[in-house]
């Protein structure tokens, strides 16, 4: 009777405790949810979350090539869209069709510019500006060329004046004279015809040939980034609208186009489809595993709040610390759930030590393995904060904070659950074998591992940014076909000659052009823009050589010209002689504004970096010397290099993190036991990479990130199993369940069409399965034996 009363009292006391625990726990959790939710609700997502791949490049990038690519890609280059129109029979349409199409595009706010390349209007406008600026921009180059060739420009006789008059006489008998006849009185030195002639060599390299096919070519520039939503759907709608409008007048018109936004949109659509079916399949796989192992699957829903609070904490902390976070962080950060759920599994599936064990007593009992696994993993991820690459730093914070939140949420949340124990079905996996068989299997595994590890020497890396997307052969073929019509037949090399200031970049361009001459056919804007030294020298010449105009007038008379008709030139020459240095800056700025379409992409003026583009065909294999401040600007290669930088940074920090995790284990469990515990995550990682080396599977950044995650997961399994081993119990069922659900969900990712997702899936699932095999074979059983022996 007394015993019954005592039990009733105890039950009442427990109910009271539970009620009080719930009040406290729900208050804490609710406060966190309200504060975190409030922060996320108030957040400006468009500003805080970036989908721009360029945000993966550090803003203070030290590598000039990457810094240039960052600028280049965010500027006009990436916003360019190329269109090719064709009549129903496949031939180039009338120019009017292209003009109407371009006009329709320009009416849309999605497009900043649309230029039919066969329409001479923009070329004429640039030509007019260049003519007006001929003395400031072209005369210094003319003078420099004469002086360099040893032609006398002063004294008697003035050979340069004599040659100019003779050239002019030949020119007026050429077909081009008909085009320039009105300009000749103001330009007897033929500055403008010469500049246009030189640009004729460069322009086909950037906009294709000027033959009849040009009629159908249109160059467009988006108003917004092609990687943003604003640069995609509205632009496609505008193109559709323009197509319908022009087809009304030109039935059967065929419109093809390409641009970064087309790839980005297609890639995003494919990834969305892929993620949808991967998620469904992954969830199905996890539920299937859970249904096999758990009695009363619905009770597993108690694990969801733990994961939810982990993700909430990670989001809040990351967006609070970093003003702009890349979307990839959240995608990769979703993997956090895989680790975060482990604490819930472990806490929830551990049976009570005895009947009526208090929840907090259970927590205290399990605290050591929980803290050991959590803190060592957090320390590992915290190391990523030292990276100079934004993505890695953001990922480190996201996962680190997420794990701390997961542990705290698990401990607090399960205090509110009346029966915090999830019973599992009994399966004899490793236990199905006799100890002797297990021992033999362990030896076999060890030998296999030794062989596998030797494969580490054969590991190769392939850092290809294209592995971030699903390859689309059709889009690529379309892109290559259209670009070929714009002069990019795949044999072009684009060089960027850069400098902190415009003058520095322009100076370097001359050095580079001298190096490239004779090595490749190339074009750039050097013929149109003098260096500052050339400009200042030409002004001094005009000031101090008054004989030159007189000599030119006399030479013109001798060649049958009426010198008096050339007064517009002499007037411009006198005005030029009064020029200050600022005249060059103003002229350069005006020309910059006047150059639209593809020629406008040939240079960039910015506060931090200035560059000139040189397009070369059949470029030399060797890179230009560093003193020329010129890099071959293959965006693909540069982004691949960025990808490689990320991989190297991740590798360095992962190794350091691994060492720290190991140190944590050694400090907690002693060196001898620590080695045995740490051998599981470390061995699984090295063994799997060794296998990749043997089978010749090249690795990338995402294999590394997968391995990092895999180490954290298997480290948890190892520590939780060690706790059971010390008690001479078989590995806990929570480890088995966690490992199998993880292997199932990441195994599904291995079916992805996106190479990097596949890499992640394969790495994590194989590591987890390998670690589980080792645990099931009671590799840690020796810990209990040793403790017992003591």
């Amino acid at each position, binding site marked *: 009777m007394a015993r019954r009363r005592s039990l009733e009292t105890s039950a009442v006391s427990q109910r009271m405790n539970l009620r009080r625990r719930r009040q406290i726990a729900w208050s804490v959790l609710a406060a966190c949810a309200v504060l975190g939710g409030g922060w996320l609700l108030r957040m400006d997502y468009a500003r805080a979350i970036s989908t721009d791949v360029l945000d993966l490049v550090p803003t203070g990038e030290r590598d000039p090539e990457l810094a240039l690519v960052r600028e280049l890609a965010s500027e006009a280059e990436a916003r360019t869209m190329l269109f090719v129109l064709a009549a129903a029979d496949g031939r180039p349409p009338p120019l009017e069709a292209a003009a109407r199409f371009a006009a329709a595009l320009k009416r849309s706010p999605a497009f900043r510019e649309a230029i039919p390349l066969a329409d001479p209007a923009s070329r004429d406008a640039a030509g007019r500006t260049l003519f007006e600026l001929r003395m400031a921009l072209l005369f210094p180059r003319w003078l420099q060329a004469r002086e360099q060739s040893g032609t006398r420009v002063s004294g008697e006789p003035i050979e340069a004046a004599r040659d100019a008059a003779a050239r002019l006489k*030949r020119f*007026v008998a050429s*077909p081009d004279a*008909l*085009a320039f*006849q009105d300009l000749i009185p103001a330009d007897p030195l033929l500055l403008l015809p010469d500049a246009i002639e030189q640009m004729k060599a460069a322009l086909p390299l950037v906009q294709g040939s000027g*033959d*009849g096919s040009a009629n159908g070519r249109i160059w467009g520039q988006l108003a917004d980034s092609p990687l943003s939503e604003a640069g995609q759907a509205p632009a496609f709608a505008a193109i559709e609208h323009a197509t319908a409008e022009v087809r009304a007048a030109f039935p059967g018109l065929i419109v093809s186009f390409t641009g970064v936004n087309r790839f980005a949109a297609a890639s995003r659509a494919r990834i969305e489809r892929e993620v949808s079916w991967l998620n469904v399949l992954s969830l199905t796989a996890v539920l299937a595993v859970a249904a096999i192992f758990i009695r009363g699957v619905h009770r597993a829903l108690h694990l969801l709040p733990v994961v939810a609070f982990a993700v909430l904490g990670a989001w809040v902390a990351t967006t609070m610390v970093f003003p702009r976070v890349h979307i990839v962080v959240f995608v990769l950060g979703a993997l956090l759930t895989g680790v975060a759920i482990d604490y819930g599994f472990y806490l929830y599936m551990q049976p009570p030590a005895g009947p009526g064990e208090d929840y907090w007593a259970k927590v205290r009992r399990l605290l050591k393995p929980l803290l050991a696994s959590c803190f060592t993993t957090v320390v590992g991820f915290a190391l990523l904060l030292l990276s100079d690459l934004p993505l890695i730093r953001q990922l480190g914070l996201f996962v680190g904070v997420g794990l701390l939140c997961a542990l705290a949420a698990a401990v607090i949340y399960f205090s509110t659950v009346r029966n915090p124990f999830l019973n599992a079905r009994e399966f004899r996996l490793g236990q199905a074998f006799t100890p002797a068989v297990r021992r033999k299997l362990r030896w076999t595994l060890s030998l296999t591992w030794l062989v596998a590890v030797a494969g580490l020497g054969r590991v190769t890396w392939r850092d290809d940014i294209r592995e971030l997307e699903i390859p689309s052969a059709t889009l690529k073929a379309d892109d290559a076909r259209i670009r070929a019509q714009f002069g990019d037949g795949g044999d072009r090399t684009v060089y960027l000659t850069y400098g902190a200031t415009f003058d520095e970049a322009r100076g370097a361009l001359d050095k580079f052009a001298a190096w490239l001459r004779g090595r490749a056919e190339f074009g750039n804007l050097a013929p149109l823009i003098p260096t500052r030294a050339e400009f200042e020298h030409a002004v001094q010449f005009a000031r101090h050589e008054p004989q030159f105009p007189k000599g030119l007038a006399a030479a013109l008379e001798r060649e*049958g010209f*009426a010198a008096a008709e050339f007064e517009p030139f002499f007037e411009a020459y006198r005005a030029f002689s009064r020029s200050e240095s600022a005249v060059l800056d103003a002229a350069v700025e005006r020309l910059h504004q006047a150059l639209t379409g593809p020629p406008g992409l040939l240079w960039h003026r910015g506060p931090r970096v200035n560059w000139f583009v040189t397009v070369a065909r059949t470029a030399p294999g060797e890179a230009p010397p560093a003193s020329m401040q010129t890099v071959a600007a293959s965006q693909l290669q540069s982004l691949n290099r960025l990808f490689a930088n990320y991989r190297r940074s991740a590798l360095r920090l992962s190794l350091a993190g691994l060492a720290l995790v190991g140190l944590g284990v050694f400090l907690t469990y002693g060196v001898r036991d620590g080695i045995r515990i740490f051998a599981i995550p470390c061995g699984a990682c090295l063994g799997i990479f060794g296998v990749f080396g043997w089978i010749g599977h090249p690795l990338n950044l995402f294999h590394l990130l997968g391995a990092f995650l895999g180490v954290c997961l298997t480290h948890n399994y190892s520590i939780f199993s060690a706790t059971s081993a010390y008690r001479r119990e078989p590995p806990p069922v929570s480890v088995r369940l966690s490992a199998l659900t993880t292997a199932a969900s990441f195994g599904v990712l291995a079916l992805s069409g996106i190479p990097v997702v596949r890499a992640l899936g394969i790495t994590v699932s194989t590591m987890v399965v390998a670690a589980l095999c080792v645990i099931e074979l009671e590799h840690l059983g020796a810990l209990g034996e040793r403790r017992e022996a003591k």
Partner: protein
Amino acid sequence: MVGGGTEPASRAARGRSAWRQPVGLAFTVLAAVVAQAAAAPPLIAPQFRLEADPPAWRELAARFARRTDTTASFEERRYFPFRKEPVVLVGDVRVSPVHGLSLHYTSPDERTMILDDHGLLVREASGQAAPLDPRAAAAVGPLRSILRFDFAELAAGYELYGRRAGETWSLGLVPRDATLRRALGDIFVEGEADTVRRIELRRSAKQHIDIVMAAPQPAASFTPEERRRFFR
């Protein structure tokens, strides 16, 4: 080369009485031409306006259409306000119903301009070919239609004016496009029967281009070698 050739310099060495007579004759002829020109009403006038397919010109157009490959020599004089004397270019023109128009300049520099269905191409003596500046191309563009007497094509781009007197005829072309009109001016074409004898691109009294053509050589198809050299 036909038309307007200069007389030998040895004439200057003759005595005063020796040159008085021809100079006097030349002045008389010139005065007569000027008087006739002054008497003739200007061609670009409403009464000479032609439609796209003028009935009175159909028979002549049909004769042009029946012509096969033809060759004639020509002389082109370019008058610029900044030149004291016109720039004189000479060469041969070839017209093919199939291959288009070819102007082969032989002096002062050798080059060939080819105008066909693919557009305009300039081929230098070295054999290097390049598309012509669009504004220069605009000046040459109408020549092909003129030499083929293609009224429909001409009427699309120009207002047409014309008059005939027996076998001789004159055409006036005024570009419909203002930019082209500023670049080219008005175009005047004169001919006899089914041959074009003179083309003038007139921007002003001091700035015009005159092309005078000789009578075409007897019709014969171009040889493969000619087609290779002078056409695309």
